[in-house]
C-alpha cells in the first residue's frame, strides 16, 4: 500500500514537472510564426499617398508603436486566427523594413482572444486596451460582443469582425469593420450566381443557426431571391463543431432543391459538397459558397467535390499585382500550400490602415495625449479616405464604420480560384 502511494506521488511529480517545463517552453516560444523577409520594394500603395503632418510640429514621443492584435490562437477556430496573426506580422515586417511609421518601428502584441470562452475575450481586451491607440481584431462576433463595452468605454478604434451594420451601429463610432457587410455580400453574390444559373428555382441555404449575422443574411437573401422567383429552403447546422451533414443535406434533397448555397466554414462547405455528391446530387456551378468557406479544407477535404463551384469573397483572391503574388507565395510556404483566408488579408490591411492613420494625422504616441489621439484615429477611420489593401483599395463609410469595397465572384478550376466577376458594393 505504501509502495503504491509512493508510485502515485512519483507519477504526479513527473506530471507536475512536465507541466512546468511546458509552461517555460510556452513562454520561450511566444513569438508567432516568423513571416518571411519582406519585399525590398515599398509595400503596396494602391491608394493616393497620404499627406503626412509636418514632423517637426508633431515629434514622435515613443520608441516603438504598439498595436495589440487579438485573434484566436487556440480552440476550434484557431485555424482562422493563426493566419490573422501571421499576416499582421507580415505587414509589420514590411513596414519596418521600409523605415517604420514616422521613422519609428512598429511592434505587434499578440493575444489569444479565447473563443469559445468569451469571458477570456473580455479579459484579453482589458489587457490589450491600456495605452493602445487602436485594437486590431478580434475576428468573430461573440468575442466582439464580449469586448464591446470595454472598447466603447476606452473610446478606442477597433477594427473587428462585426461586419453587419446592425452590430456596428451598437459600437459606433468605435467599431470599424474588417470585412464588407456579410448580408450585402451574400445577396450580391447570390444574385450574380442566379444570373449565371437562370434555371435554378429552389435553392437550399446551409447556415449555422447560432451565428446572428448568418441568420440575418438568410432572411435578406431569401427576400432578394423571392423577387427573382427563386424559393429558398433553409437548412440549419448547429455550430462550428458540426462535422456530420447527412441530416442537413437530406433536408435540401427532400426539399427538391436544384441549387445549393453554403454559408459555412471551409471544412463544413467541403463536407456538405461531399455529402451532396455521395447522395447523387451534382455540385459544380449550382453550388455557391461564401468567403468563410475559403479555407484549407476546401481544397483537401473538398477536393473533387467543389470543382466548378463558385465562391464570393470580400477579397480579390485572383488579383495579379506583384505584392499580392508574393504574399500568396509566402502564405503558401507558411501554411502548407493554402490560399490566404479573409482573416489573414484583413489582418494585413488593418496594420496598414493604422500606419496611414498615424502618418496622415501626425500621431505622436505621447501618453499625455492618448485620449485626444485615440479620438483623432476614430474620426479618421470612421470616414476614411481610400486605404491601401494588399489586393485593392477600400474605405470605411461614416454611417457606421462599414467597409466599402467590391465583392468578387470566383470559380474553382483545377483546385484554384479563377475570377468570374467583380461586383460593386451597392445595396441590391
Amino acid at each position: 500500500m505504501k509502495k503504491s502511494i509512493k508510485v502515485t506521488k512519483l507519477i504526479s511529480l513527473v506530471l507536475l514537472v512536465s507541466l512546468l517545463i511546458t509552461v517555460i517552453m510556452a513562454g520561450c516560444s511566444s513569438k508567432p510564426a516568423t513571416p518571411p523577409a519582406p519585399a525590398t520594394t515599398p509595400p503596396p500603395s494602391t491608394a493616393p499617398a497620404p499627406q503626412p503632418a509636418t514632423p517637426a510640429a508633431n515629434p514622435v514621443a515613443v520608441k516603438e508603436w504598439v498595436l495589440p492584435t487579438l485573434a484566436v490562437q487556440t480552440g476550434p477556430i484557431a485555424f482562422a486566427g493563426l493566419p490573422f496573426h501571421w499576416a499582421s506580422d507580415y505587414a509589420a515586417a514590411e513596414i519596418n523594413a521600409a523605415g517604420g511609421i514616422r521613422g519609428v518601428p512598429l511592434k505587434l502584441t499578440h493575444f489569444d482572444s479565447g473563443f469559445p470562452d468569451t469571458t477570456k475575450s473580455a479579459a484579453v481586451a482589458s489587457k490589450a486596451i491600456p495605452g493602445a491607440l487602436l485594437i486590431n481584431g478580434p475576428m468573430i462576433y461573440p468575442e466582439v460582443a464580449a469586448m464591446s463595452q470595454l472598447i466603447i468605454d476606452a473610446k478606442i478604434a477597433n477594427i473587428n469582425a462585426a461586419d453587419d451594420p446592425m452590430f456596428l451601429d451598437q459600437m459606433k463610432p468605435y467599431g470599424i469593420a474588417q470585412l464588407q457587410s456579410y448580408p450585402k455580400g451574400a445577396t450580391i453574390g447570390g444574385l450574380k450566381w442566379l444570373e449565371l444559373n437562370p434555371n435554378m428555382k429552389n435553392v437550399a441555404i446551409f447556415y449555422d443557426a447560432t451565428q446572428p449575422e448568418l441568420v440575418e443574411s438568410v432572411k435578406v437573401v431569401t427576400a432578394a431571391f423571392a423577387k427573382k422567383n427563386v424559393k429558398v429552403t433553409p437548412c440549419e447546422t448547429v455550430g462550428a463543431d458540426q462535422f456530420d451533414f447527412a441530416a442537413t443535406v437530406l433536408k435540401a434533397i427532400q426539399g427538391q432543391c436544384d441549387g445549393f448555397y453554403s454559408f459555412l466554414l471551409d471544412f463544413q462547405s467541403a463536407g456538405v459538397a461531399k455529402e451532396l455528391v455521395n447522395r447523387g446530387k451534382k455540385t459544380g456551378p449550382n453550388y455557391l459558397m461564401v468567403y468563410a468557406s475559403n479555407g484549407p479544407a476546401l481544397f483537401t477535404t473538398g477536393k473533387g467535390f467543389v470543382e466548378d463551384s463558385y465562391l464570393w469573397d470580400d477579397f480579390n483572391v485572383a488579383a495579379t499585382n506583384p505584392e499580392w503574388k508574393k504574399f500568396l507565395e509566402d502564405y503558401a510556404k507558411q501554411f502548407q500550400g493554402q490560399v490566404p483566408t479573409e482573416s489573414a488579408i484583413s489582418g494585413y490591411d488593418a496594420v496598414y490602415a493604422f500606419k496611414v492613420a498615424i502618418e496622415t494625422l501626425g500621431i505622436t504616441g505621447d501618453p499625455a495625449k492618448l485620449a485626444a489621439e485615440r479620438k483623432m484615429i476614430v474620426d479618421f477611420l470612421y470616414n476614411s479616405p481610400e486605404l491601401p489593401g494588399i489586393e485593392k483599395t477600400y474605405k470605411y463609410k461614416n454611417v457606421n464604420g462599414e467597409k466599402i469595397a467590391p465583392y468578387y465572384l470566383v470559380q474553382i478550376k483545377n483546385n484554384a480560384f479563377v475570377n468570374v466577376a467583380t461586383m460593386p458594393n451597392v445595396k441590391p
Partner: protein
Amino acid sequence: MLVSIQLYLEILGIYILLLWAMYLPFRGGQLYNGPFYCMAIGAYTAAYTTKILGYPHGVAIIIALILATLIGFLTSLAFSRTTGIVTATASMALIFIVVAIINNFDLIGASRGIWGIPKFHGLLPTIYIVVILMGIIVFRIENSRFGRALEAMRTDLDLANTLGVNMPHLSTFVMTLASAMGALAGVFYAFTVQSILAQNFSFSLLLTIMAMLFIGGRYTMWGVLVSAPVLWAIQLWFPASIAKFTNIFYGALLVIILVIRPEGIISREMLQRLTARIKSRSRRIKPFAASPQN
C-alpha cells in the same frame, strides 16, 4: 490596470457564486448543472428589463432572481427524485435546451444577443455584498442539520433514508438555492460585460467551473476561494503566450489533483486539523492571560 483589476474582481465574484451554487447540491452527492441555465435566464432577464424595458437595476435583479429561481425550482422538483448520472446528464441537457431556446427567441435578440446593457454603478461592492451573504448562508447550511443530512445523503442514500432524511425535499431546497445563486451570477455577469449571447453560458463555462470546483476542493466551501482567484488570474494576468494555454493548465491541474489529492487542495481533514490547532493554541494562551502576575 485599473480596468483589469475591476474586471478580475467582478468576474471572480461571479465565479465564486457559481462555484458555491455547484457545491451545495454536490454536498448531497448531486451533480446538478441547474445554476448554468438559471445563470442564462437571470442574465437575459436582467438585460431585457434594463435595456429594453428601462427598469432600474435593482428591480431588474429582483425580477431576474424570482423568474430564474422559479424555473430552477420547477426543474428541481423533477431532479430531486433522480440521482447521480441521471441528474448530471439531464441537467446538462437542459443547458443546451435553454441556449437553443434563447437562440430562437427573437424578443430577446435570438442569436444576436443583447448589447449595450446599461452600466450599473457600484456593481463591484454589490457583487461582494451578495457573495458575503451567500457565503454566510452556505456556511450556516453546512454547519446545521441540513448540512449533516446532505452529508448522510452523499455517503449513502439508504442510510440517509433510515435516518429520516426527507431526500426529495432536501434536494429540492438545495437545488432551488443553487438556482438562485446561479441567477444572481447571471445578473452580475450581464451587468459586468454589458453584452450577452447565449453562447456565453455553454459548455466552456461549465468545464471551467467544474475544474475550479474539483481543484479547489469539492467537499468544502472554502476550496473555491483558493482555486477561483488563482485559475482566473492565469487568463487575465499571465503573459499572453502562457495564458493561451489556459485550458491545458486546467486539464493538467485537474488530472494531477485527482491523482495525488482527489479531495482537492482544501479538504475537510485539513480544515479540521487547522481548526483543532487554532483551538489548542487559544487554550494555551488563555491560562497566561488569566494570571496577570505572569
